[in-house]
């Protein structure tokens, strides 16, 4: 009797799983293709903006003063270059606050040496709680630079310490290992000038590995030499140039990247600043700001501008990448669960109906289903529970949809930003768009499932990711010869 039930159950389960996998895979592919079409439409409707001079003259009188917050921990390799680049940004009124979050290396010492900083005692009385501040450091010659030295409390805690000292209408959060293009703030601030509802704006984040840097500026854009970083390059293209552009167009953008985002100070503060209980503080802040604005009947909009580009270093070892992706996923799950009440609710507009709902469906559920499909379908095939040709057809469709979406992102990049200067780079990226479907995509899904597990276990923490100094012009030239 038991044997009979088992023999009937296995094919049934196989068929059921097959159906679920097909439907989820199909929905995800269609969703991504729809995002591609919308991004293409958005680009056609709002092509890249004017050149630097026109941008400056049109915004210099109206751009609101802005403070750049740079949380830094153990960033001695890149911090001086990053701060130099920030101070050289083309923006009428910009101030830079670096928050040294209890670095264990010479991050603070490097800043003190490079900018001749002087120590001042400090007592914080801002509205946002944070770990104790030991001192603030100011430069006698540069009143636009301030460094906060505080005890370690995490990135969100550091940002809160900085946010307490922001005196400007807008603030921009930038990772210490990131480099902004000179006109990026001017380009990103435009939605705040044009639309009073804007509460947050995100820009494109690109992979800096392989690029040559001089004086804190990218002087030569190249693809990374590491294949792992190249795989991430195409992922970043898909995420920023395609998905965020499309979601913002639909008024459904749920996230502004922590690597580069501009926020309305008053609403961010009123909403309670950055949450220290999650490692996905960027997503959480946007959700909380929108929630706050909605609950207080304040007009609000989250925008994305593709032209401002922020270059960031990505992990080049599997171990670091795994840590980063697991952390991102845990952060996303924490934020999603904390704001689950916003998902699928028309009250929260496009963000609730589409942005959060798609995150729940495609970021939370799909990795589980896809991974189960990759593991179990071959098993069911091997046991004869399902038809082999079906498994192959499903695999082909999944891979082709993935390749098409990535090629679509490449097309958008070509139409929109054109940051990679050589045909060879494009050819490599096209190749990477194919390769990533065989192993890398599954690996990322596996890390997401591990993220699920960590989230359920309540494990937290950032982990330490190894950073390298930016490649200077000399080293890049030498390595290419």
């Amino acid at each position, binding site marked *: 009797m038991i044997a009979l039930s088992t023999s009937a159950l296995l*094919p049934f389960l*196989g*068929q059921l799983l*097959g*159906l679920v996998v097909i439907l989820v895979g199909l929905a995800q592919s269609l969703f991504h293709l729809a995002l591609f079409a919308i991004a293409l439409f958005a680009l056609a409707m709002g092509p890249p903006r004017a050149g630097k001079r026109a941008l400056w003259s049109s915004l210099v009188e109206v751009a*609101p*003063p802005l403070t750049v917050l740079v949380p830094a921990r153990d960033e001695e390799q890149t911090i001086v270059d990053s701060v130099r680049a920030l101070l050289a940004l083309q923006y009428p*009124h910009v101030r830079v606050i670096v928050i040294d979050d209890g670095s264990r290396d010479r991050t603070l010492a490097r800043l003190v040496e490079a900018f001749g900083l002087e120590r001042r005692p400090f007592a914080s009385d801002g509205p946002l709680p944070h770990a104790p501040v030991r001192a603030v450091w100011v430069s006698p010659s540069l*009143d636009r630079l301030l460094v906060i030295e505080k005890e370690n409390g995490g990135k969100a805690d550091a940002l809160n310490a900085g946010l307490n000292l922001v*005196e400007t*209408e807008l603030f921009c959060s930038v990772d210490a290992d990131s480099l902004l293009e000179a006109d990026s703030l001017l380009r990103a601030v435009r939605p705040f000038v044009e639309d*009073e509802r804007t509460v947050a704006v995100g820009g494109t984040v690109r992979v800096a590995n392989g690029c*040559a840097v*001089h*004086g804190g*500026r990218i*002087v*030569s*854009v190249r693809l990374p030499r590491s294949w792992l970083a190249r795989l991430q390059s195409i992922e970043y293209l898909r995420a920023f140039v395609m998905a965020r552009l499309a979601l913002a167009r639909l008024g459904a953008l749920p996230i502004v990247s922590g690597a580069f985002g501009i926020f309305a100070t*008053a609403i961010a503060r009123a909403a309670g600043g950055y949450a220290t209980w999650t490692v996905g503080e960027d997503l959480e802040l946007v959700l909380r700001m929108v929630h706050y604005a909605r609950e207080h009947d*304040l007009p609000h909009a989250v925008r994305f501008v593709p032209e401002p580009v922020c270059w960031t270093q990505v992990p080049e070892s599997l171990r670091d990448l795994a840590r980063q992706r697991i952390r991102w996923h845990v952060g996303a799950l924490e934020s999603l669960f904390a704001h689950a009440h916003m998902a699928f609710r028309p009250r929260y507009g496009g963000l609730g109906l589409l942005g959060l709902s798609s995150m729940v469906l495609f970021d939370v559920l799909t990795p589980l289903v896809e991974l189960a499909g990759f593991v179990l379908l071959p098993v069911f095939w091997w046991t*004869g*529970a*399902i*038809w082999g*040709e*079906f498994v192959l*057809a*499903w695999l*082909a*469709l999944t*891979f*082709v*949809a993935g*390749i*098409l979406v990535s*090629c*679509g992102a*490449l*097309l958008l990049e*070509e139409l929109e930003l054109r940051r990679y*200067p*050589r*045909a060879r780079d*494009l*050819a490599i990226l*096209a190749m990477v*768009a194919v390769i990533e479907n065989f192993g890398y995509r599954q690996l990322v899904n596996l890390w997401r499932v591990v993220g699920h597990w960590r989230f359920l276990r309540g494990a937290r923490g950032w982990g330490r990711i190894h950073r390298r100094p930016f490649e*200077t*012009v*000399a080293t*890049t*030239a*030498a390595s290419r010869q």
Partner: protein
Amino acid sequence: MPFASAKLDPFLTAIWQLSLWGALAGCLLALSLVLRRTVEEWRQRKAPPGGQELRQRLIAGLAREDWQAVRSLLAGRSAADVAALVDELAQIVRGEMQLRLVALAAQLGLPERLRAELRSWRTGVRALAATRLSLFRDPESEAALLTALRDPHPKVRLAAAESLAGRPAARSALESRVLADSAFARPPAARFWHLLAGRDPELFSACFAATSEPERRRLMIEAIASAGLVQLLPAVVEASVSGDPELRRKATAGLLERRHPAAFAALERLLLDPEPVLRAEALALVARFRLAPFAPRVLQRLEDPEPLVRSRARDTALRLGLSLAELGALSRSYPLENLR
């Protein structure tokens, strides 16, 4: 068994066909992008210089001890291309590398060429040459720039003055010219005054003391606030009560930017200025700097006799986060406007 049956043949065929067409579309798309770029690259290779590769190699070369070797990279390029490259690199490199770049440009005869271009019949060429000569500090180039201060076109005169700003040898000539020339009192000169305030505060102070022309003082007041010239900030405070409305507006904005203790008093005055446009501008400043303590003053302006000011006051109040109820309750004199 629906997934183990030949009945699914049409379904599977459809999936395969879809996959094949999709793969074909993806390949064609990628191929067309790469081909397009390859053709562009091929065209660029035929055309002379530029390119990131060259720029990168030049910077790398300038960083080395044998930096003179980079001269070979510029061999065979036209003088205009070399000038453009040097101009571009000068924005990127600093310190010792910038000095080497200037020396290299001098070896290549760039200053002579730029000095010759200062005599061109085309205004744009002369102005660009004057801008690019800012790199060179040799006496001939300085003399050429001083001559350019008397160029018939104001654009060239401004470019030459910007290049001379901060050079001790050119101070007296620059002072007399910028005070005598009306081009330095017009809006395009704002950049020059900003540069001078940053590079030579002493000369700037002397010019400021010597001028009483309202247009010129407006530009200079703006530059003082922007550069944060502490010793001249009292002049900005003084300008905030001047008889010139535009000067009052710029001075108040400048004081707010510098977070000067006198800023709030100046803003209070501007909010009560007899000129309606200035009252509206003052409200715009309150909104721009999000000055919540001014909320009561903003609400008072809702009763302003001028519609422009009332409208700006309403916008500012909303930007400060005041509720519509507060606005409606206080704006009694103009009830119809509350309906908007």
